[in-house]
């Protein structure tokens, strides 16, 4: 078992009520562990509390109750010094939804340097990191461009490079693909996978796209501030009816398998998250109704 990176126990958060009204609970008694190097998707409809969870991880919001330990730092104690806070944010990077609202500088490489400059990385190490980060997201040739000339997907990759350059252990993607077109989304998702597989970075992808969640190793479904499901994509998508109750849909492939089973066609197997594996299951059943050959 890999080392635990995030440990939440009975974690709760409430937004302060406006005009002296009651506090609005956004997260209620969340208990979960995320290991180092995991690729986790957090699913939920708008307002389910999934983005709140993300914002707790690097203390943009402070937990109101319960325990939250990230990379050995206790975030729920409420007495982090400025140095500790900066150290935490270096280790847990965050990529936001709107690519325009997170780029600071007027030139791509200056923007990538922004984070490391803040934590005092000296030259020539700084130059080395910036070039490396841009190369790893495939944006080296855009180093001296202006961000507003880039596409959404490219801007988002620059934002990711800006985080990588700080050498984080974990990156949280807070609906980072929601504003992108399919091409941009693919670019960003490929980058995310590469970071997880090759650099061993723990990835937490907050999303409401089912096809995107299918790419993760583990899917956590949050509804109404609590953890509704937690498992592999196949395990989660097997519970289509429960997902639908909370406003989520399974990917089309999984939906098809469910519907065919309902129609009495005996499809064996659980691998229903991807086109390839679904095709295998279906083909096995359809070829003369025999079970899979192996």
């Amino acid at each position: 078992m890999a080392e635990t990176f995030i440990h939440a126990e009975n974690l709760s958060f409430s937004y302060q009520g406006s005009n002296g009204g009651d506090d609005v609970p956004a997260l209620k008694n969340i208990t979960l562990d995320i290991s180092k190097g995991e690729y986790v998707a957090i699913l939920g409809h708008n307002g389910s509390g999934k983005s709140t969870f993300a914002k707790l991880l690097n203390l943009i919001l402070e937990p109101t109750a319960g325990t939250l330990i990230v990379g050995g730092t206790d975030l729920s104690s409420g007495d982090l010094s400025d140095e500790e806070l900066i150290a935490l944010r270096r280790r847990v990077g965050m990529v936001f939804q709107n690519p325009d609202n997170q780029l600071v500088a007027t030139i791509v490489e200056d923007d990538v340097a922004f984070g490391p400059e803040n934590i005092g990385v000296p030259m020539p190490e700084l130059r080395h990191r910036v070039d490396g980060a841009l190369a790893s997201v495939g944006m080296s040739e855009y180093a001296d461009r202006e961000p507003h000339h880039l596409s959404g997907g490219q801007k988002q990759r620059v934002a990711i490079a800006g985080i990588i350059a700080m050498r984080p252990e974990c990156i949280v993607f807070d609906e980072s693909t929601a504003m992108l077109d399919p091409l941009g989304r693919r670019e960003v998702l490929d980058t995310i996978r590469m970071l997880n597989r090759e650099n061993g970075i723990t990835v937490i992808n907050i999303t409401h796209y089912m096809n995107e969640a299918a790419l993760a190793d583990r899917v956590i479904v949050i509804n109404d501030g609590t953890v509704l499901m937690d498992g592999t994509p196949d395990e989660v998508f097997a519970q289509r009816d429960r997902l639908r109750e909370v406003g989520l849909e399974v990917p089309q492939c999984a939906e098809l398998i469910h519907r065919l089973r309902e129609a009495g066609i005996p499809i064996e197997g659980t691998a229903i998250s991807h086109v390839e594996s679904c095709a295998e299951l279906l083909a096995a059943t359809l070829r003369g109704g025999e079970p899979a050959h192996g």
Partner: protein
Amino acid sequence: MDKIHLDHVSFTYSAGTPFEHQALDDVTVHIGASRITGVIGHTGSGKSTMMMLLNGLSKPTSGNVFLDGYDVNSTAKELYKTWLTLPEYRNLRKSTAKKAIRKEVEARKRRLCFRVGLVMQYPEYQLFEETVFKDIAYGPKNMGLSDEEIRERVLEAARFSGLDESLLEKSPFDLSGGQKRRVAIAGVIAMKPEVLVLDEPAAGLDPIGREQIFEEIRRYQRSTASSVIIVSHSMEDMAEYCDDMVVLSQSKVIAAGTCEEVFSKVSMLDEVGLDIPQITQLMRRLRKMGIDIPENVYTVDRAVEILKRYYQSQKGNLT
């Protein structure tokens, strides 16, 4: 007749500068009346530019845009010759008739944006009034309607967009993202446009939010029999909700027709890098694996039907 007809339309941004960019290249499109047409393409394929041409926000660099057979960019000068023979103008003095024609052309130009209602991408960012009611009423007010008529239209538009009446006196800035989106759409529906054009109406919404918005658009279209154009890059949604499709790639139309017709060219759509629906990908894969099924399947319903039939026939063969 076509509701909208783009005839050899080209559009170039910043012509004659280093930033020159051809957004539409000799595009000819027919859009049928009382149907939902999906316009699909990547960012930069020219689909957003096309929308702006439909309601006169921009004019084509070359080519013509027809609405009900009328060239929306025609000038009075071009029309004198043909119109002077029309019964309305025939019996007038020539100068009076010309003046009348000029006035009519002007009025048509002004009316164009009310006839072709445009809902831009992320329309919730255009809300500005104190109350939801006032914001929806902005368009009808600009049309110069009576207060009574405005009220009626606002209520109707709110109903179509799935907005509860209790929200109408709230500030639009206090609403949730999905509700704001609905207010913005209602603001355009309230102008009772003959053609409703929506650019990515479901962008950023969660699955249920997407479904609701598209269902509402469909309900609106079916009950008003107006024409609806949805611009999107999601083939999955378009296949589900549209009657017709126009596919743009690199400033050109590469496929157009009913969904069935467009999906019969699925390999070509795949080649230009469009995100074909997962269900279509699955069916194509099965076909490649030697299972004899059509590959232009684009909804789950249809796939279930086909596979069920296939399974039963296979079972029949065995026994």
